């Protein structure tokens, strides 16, 4: 039964893609290509077919074979030394980033790598970070062999220039974890020891045990005070030096006063102090910090051109091919770029037919044809056969890389948007100090013995713990809610920036247009079946993007195959061919020597066809805007100023002006640096700008804006450094995201009010000098927990209300 169903399925057993007409059968299973079959063969030979049982069709399509020499550069000793984390005379260790890892089958196979390669000693996956660390015996197999094996399995590790330039800093949050552990340890045990005091057991309070408990508490609180809370003292001291009063100042002051007063009480046997409150406060504060620090590990938000460019490139040296690390490329070097390789430096095309896909640079998906002698900018990807080029600028001097070295870019100024917490904490601290001194002065007048007591009590009880917790929990939660909706923020404080933005700037290509899709329609005399088949056959012969689109548009041919004769393709003009002695021409109006009858509509590209010297009509190809765009724009136009920036010419101005409101600015023919300057000027004039774009050409603008949102079709692919990485499917929900950010800000405001109420309640005791340790020990955790609960629940409810999921 199992085998029968497998035969009936019309998807590839390995990768799950639809099967083409020519299926490759093997072992009672069907495969879409030789690559997929190869992987299955390899796995079944090694008893690794469990791979297919853990998830349905877990494999990755291998339709694009990888060039044999692609990884030769990994034999280079210098490159190896920079990539390997560790190496002795036997074992090497390396960590790869593997964006294609996606399911539990992947984990299983990658951790069983030792069964496929004898050299591999151990391999371990970190799924959330999409990393694979491998230790291998470099006498038994080389780094190149391992990378080739991984690539053959479909898990090509991403090796790029960024890996070469210094090992990545390991984000170390361990220190915070230790602090949190120590604080939790102190909090729990101090509370336990303080129980007799809470219940007012007299037999304890008078006996020597009470003294012992006091000193025990002090001993437990000491590491909390010295180790766990030290960051608050450092931060408060640093900001005071700069003349700023931040939230950490009242916190540090409260902690310090609490510890001093409690120690005094214990040593003089006048009480047991507030050690429980102190440890609890520090514990909750660190918990908030930890929540705020947990961000999305899977995505990298700091990517620049270095994480996109290759490690090495083939260089032709006296007709001999060698691989050279990209940073060592010199002007005049002859490089060879093969199919799907990226051009690392601005170069002149010398040999071969170049079809350059600049999708990562411009967001434009169609490959662009280049002629011999033309300078091709770095960042393009060659599609088709290998080409030979001469480097005319070094990598660091190339057009795109210079964007990163530009003045504005380096000085990408701090956002002018201030967080609610920083604004509030200033007033809060001053109010707190005034109350403390006022109550001290009052009691000094009436009852000097209670003066110091009241002063310290105010500082202890008003320690803005709940206030300090509201922002981290509200922002941290909404980061996760937005992440569930495929809107990934770099850090939680971005939510506040989102809520405060008042001007949205859109890029056109790839952002509001759908990169992969375009509308195609035919105008003219109706085509009969044979004509349509002819056209499809001819177009299918060409790699030109327009021909591919037309071939995809035409219905499938019923006839087996045509013999195409006299096939001729003139770049930039069109193609001609003869089938069954009928001449077929496809191309521009100029190429077909016809004068278009209707006025040429500049909004779209037209491809004319003629069969047997008779012009039948034309195909019109227009870019598709994302579904729901006009709805989204009209939603956003109510609350935001909108601007459109495009690197293309203004041929689509009319169509776009139907979508965008009249007051929206539309600027065309903008170079990457012009976009950046434009955003810069908007910010100078005091606007709070969000840039929504994609591709390397927007990288400057994304960085300069208050908020940079990069839109990507596939989050595993490259996207330029920005504050937010957004899955393109969520584009139409953009206004929901912005609304949600505003709701989150409201939640913070409300929880501020809640914590203020608690403070006023506590202060009413404190100013009278009546604060007992028990009240403090109850009030502090209750206020903290209620704020945590309130923010967590309300951010979730608001996410539902804004239809995030």
């Amino acid at each position, binding site marked *: 039964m199992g085998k029968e169903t497998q035969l009936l399925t019309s998807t590839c057993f390995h990768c799950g893609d639809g099967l083409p007409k020519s299926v490759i059968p093997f072992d009672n299973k069907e495969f879409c290509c030789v690559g997929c079959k190869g992987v299955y063969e390899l796995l079944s030979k090694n008893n690794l077919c469990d791979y297919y049982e*853990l998830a349905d069709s877990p494999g990755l399509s291998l339709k694009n074979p990888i060039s044999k020499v692609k990884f030769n550069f990994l034999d280079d000793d210098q490159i190896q030394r920079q990539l390997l984390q560790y190496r002795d005379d036997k074992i090497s260790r390396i960590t790869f980033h593997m964006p294609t890892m996606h399911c539990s089958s992947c*984990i*299983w196979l990658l951790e069983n790598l030792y069964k496929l390669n004898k050299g591999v000693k151990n391999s371990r996956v970190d799924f*959330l*970070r999409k990393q694979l660390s491998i230790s291998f015996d470099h006498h038994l197999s080389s780094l190149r062999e391992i990378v080739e094996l991984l690539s053959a399995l479909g898990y090509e590790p991403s090796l790029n220039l960024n890996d070469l330039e210094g090992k990545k800093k390991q984000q170390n949050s361990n220190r915070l*974890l*230790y602090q949190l*552990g*120590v604080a939790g*340890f102190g909090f729990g045990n101090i509370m336990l020891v303080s129980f007799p005091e809470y219940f007012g057991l007299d037999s304890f309070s008078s006996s020597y045990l009470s003294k012992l408990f006091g000193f025990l508490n002090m001993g437990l609180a000491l590491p909390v005070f010295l180790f766990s809370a030290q960051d608050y003292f450092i931060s408060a001291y640093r900001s005071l030096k700069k003349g700023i009063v931040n939230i950490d100042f009242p916190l540090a002051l409260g902690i310090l006063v609490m510890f001093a007063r409690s120690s005094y009480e214990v040593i003089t046997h006048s009480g047991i102090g507030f050690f429980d409150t102190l440890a609890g406060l520090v514990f909750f504060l660190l918990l908030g910090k930890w929540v705020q620090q947990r961000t999305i590990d899977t995505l990298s938000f700091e990517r620049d051109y270095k994480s996109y460019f290759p490690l090495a490139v083939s260089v032709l040296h006296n007709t001999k091919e060698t691989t050279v690390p990209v940073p060592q490329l010199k002007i005049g070097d002859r490089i060879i770029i093969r199919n799907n390789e990226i051009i690392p430096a601005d170069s002149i095309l010398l040999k071969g037919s170049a079809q350059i896909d600049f999708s990562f640079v411009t967001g434009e998906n169609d490959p662009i044809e280049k002629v011999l002698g033309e300078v091709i900018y770095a960042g393009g990807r060659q599609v088709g056969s290998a080409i030979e080029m001469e480097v005319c600028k070094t990598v660091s001097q190339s057009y795109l890389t210079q964007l990163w070295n530009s003045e504005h870019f380096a000085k990408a100024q701090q956002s002018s948007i201030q967080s609610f917490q920083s604004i509030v904490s200033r007033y809060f601290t001053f109010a707190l100090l005034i109350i403390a001194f006022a109550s001290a002065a009052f009691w000094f007048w009436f009852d000097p013995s209670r003066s110091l007591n009241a002063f310290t009590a105010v500082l202890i009880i008003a320690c803005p713990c709940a206030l300090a917790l509201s922002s981290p929990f509200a922002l941290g939660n909404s980061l996760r809610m937005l992440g569930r909706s495929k809107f990934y923020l770099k850090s939680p404080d971005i939510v506040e920036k989102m809520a405060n933005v008042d001007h949205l700037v859109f890029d056109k290509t790839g952002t509001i247009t759908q990169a992969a899709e375009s509308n195609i329609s035919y105008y003219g005399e109706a085509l009969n079946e044979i004509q349509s088949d002819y056209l499809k056959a001819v177009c299918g012969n060409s790699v030109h993007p327009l021909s591919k689109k037309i071939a995809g548009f035409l219905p499938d041919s019923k006839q087996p195959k045509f013999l195409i004769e006299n096939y001729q393709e003139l770049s930039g003009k069109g193609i001609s061919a003869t089938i069954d002695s009928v001449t077929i021409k496809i191309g521009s109006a100029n190429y077909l020597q016809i004068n278009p009858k209707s006025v040429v509509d500049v909004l779209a590209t037209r491809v004319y066809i003629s069969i047997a010297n008779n012009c039948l009509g034309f195909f019109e190809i227009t870019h598709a805007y994302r579904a729901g765009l006009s709805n989204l724009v009209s939603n956003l136009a109510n609350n935001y100023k909108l601007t459109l920036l495009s690197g293309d010419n203004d041929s689509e101005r009319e169509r776009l002006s139907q979508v965008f409101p009249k007051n929206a600015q539309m600027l065309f023919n903008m170079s990457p640096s012009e976009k950046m300057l434009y955003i810069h000027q908007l910010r100078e004039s005091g606007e709070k700008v969000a840039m929504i774009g994609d591709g390397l050409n927007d990288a400057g603008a994304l960085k300069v804006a208050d908020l940079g949102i990069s839109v990507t079709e596939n989050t595993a692919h490259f996207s330029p450094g920005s504050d937010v990485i957004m899955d393109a499917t969520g584009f139409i929900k953009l206004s929901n995201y912005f609304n949600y950010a505003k709701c989150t800000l409201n939640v913070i405001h409300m929880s501020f009010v809640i914590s203020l109420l608690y403070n006023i309640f506590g202060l009413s005791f404190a100013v009278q000098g009546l604060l007992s340790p028990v009240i403090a020990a109850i009030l502090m955790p209750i206020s903290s927990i209620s704020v945590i609960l309130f923010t967590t629940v309300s951010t979730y409810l608001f996410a539902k209300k804004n239809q995030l999921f």
Partner: protein
Amino acid sequence: MKIMFLLIGCSMLMAIGFLIAFIWSVRNGQMEDDYTPSVRILFEDKPIKEDSEEN
């Protein structure tokens, strides 16, 4: 009431034991990846087929 000293001593030792266990787990990298182990534990090593036939 002198038994309290012993009890407190024991409870402190236990608590410190747990603190040390926590610090060890952080050092050991258990806090770094909180997803993959949950998948890994469900994999089972099947006996190799040829072996089982021979047996």
